[in-house]
């Protein structure tokens, strides 16, 4: 029997990220498990990256591309700061990422990327991208391997879908953190690529980034 050989430039190393925008905050979360097929490569790898301008980059997928995207982006942010003599805003950074990703239209970064931060008014914002740079501004986002398990929970909890009183449910940042913890605990029961721990970062104008780590099941 002839076995076909091929070289595939991508791996999928999972990770699940959640981002929720509030009126004066942004809460982002990532699990800390890194996998390749059914092997666990790391139990302490977070998919949240703090950028120079206090934006938080969430990126899952192929770690090689995630790290390259992050490195290239850090360079672009510095160039922007030198040429414009001011830090880049999160909406401008989102536009920059979109252009960078579409620049690799025919050999894409294999990543599910979300950029979050505070806009110029201090309001939370979340921008989600597909691998080739299509961008949408969202109230909340969830990407990665457990996305099918988590996204409908966010629909129900944040938009109040399928209730007698649908609409955006406003939460304090503490309530949002608790909600995200509960969601990760539920999702890790049913997804083998999610587990070990969840890191939750809260970004506010006055306090900057606060971090909360919560253990999850390790099997």
């Amino acid at each position, binding site marked *: 029997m002839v076995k076909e050989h091929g070289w595939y430039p991508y791996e999928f190393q999972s990770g699940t990220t959640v981002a929720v925008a509030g009126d004066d905050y942004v809460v982002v979360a990532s699990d800390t498990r890194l996998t390749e097929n059914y092997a666990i490569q790391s139990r302490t790898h977070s998919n949240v990256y703090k950028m120079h301008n206090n934006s938080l980059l969430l990126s899952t997928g192929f770690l090689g591309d995630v790290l390259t995207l992050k490195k290239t982006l850090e360079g672009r942010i510095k160039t922007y700061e030198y040429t414009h003599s001011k830090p880049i805003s999160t909406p401008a950074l989102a536009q920059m990422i979109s252009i960078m990703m579409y620049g690799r239209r025919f050999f894409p970064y294999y990543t599910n990327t979300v950029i979050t931060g505070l806009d110029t008014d201090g309001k939370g914002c979340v921008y989600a991208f597909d691998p080739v740079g299509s961008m949408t501004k969202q109230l909340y986002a969830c990407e990665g391997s*457990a996305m*099918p*398990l*988590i*996204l*409908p*929970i966010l*629909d*129900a909890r944040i938009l109040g*879908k*399928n209730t007698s009183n649908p609409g955006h449910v406003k939460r304090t940042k503490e309530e949002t953190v608790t909600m995200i913890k*509960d*969601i990760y605990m*539920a*999702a890790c*029961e*049913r997804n083998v690529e999610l587990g070990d721990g969840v890191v939750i970062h809260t970004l506010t104008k006055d306090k900057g980034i606060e971090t909360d780590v919560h253990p999850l099941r390790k099997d």
Partner: protein
Amino acid sequence: MGDDIMSYNGGVALAMKGKECVAIACDKRYGVQNRTIATNFTKIFQYGDHCFVALCGLATDVQTVSERLKFRTNLYELREQRKLKPIVLYNMLTNLLYERRFGPYFVYALVAGLDPKTGETFVYDSDNIGAISDNVNLATVGTASDFIFGLGELFFKPNMNPDELFEATSQALLNGVDRDSASGWGAIVYVIEKDKITLRELKGRQD
């Protein structure tokens, strides 16, 4: 979607346990890939007083398996002169599916039931070749099952009363199918108790 036979027609079902009650629910869509043909195609079948089966997958096999199971359960009750128990129904179903091990029916199955004397609850699931499961708290099969598992795991609490169980099951199903294009168009929910069985129809999003 693509060429997968299991998601050719779409549809999903969910079963959950409460305290001396059990709920089983399904959506109503029948489609061919992206085209919706009918919106009244329910996938839950009753066999005996407190025994229900939900079948998801290829619609033609859903009908065939449900009819063949009806035939076998009828024969069982005639020959044995006693009522069907959930575990018996489950064994008959998995046996029926395994008979076609090398040319299987393209259906995943759920069995939900209750012992009317003790109030003991039963929820089982199976793949298309009849793999048996434990008696679980929560089971879901069909195109939206991944969406529903997350919600179900969050909404499930041990020892829910019938009203809480109905609410948890409905919420998990409705929010789950809203993220799936192959299922939805309303739902039905059975709540099975010792002395009564309640059927409720849910409207949900019609798209």
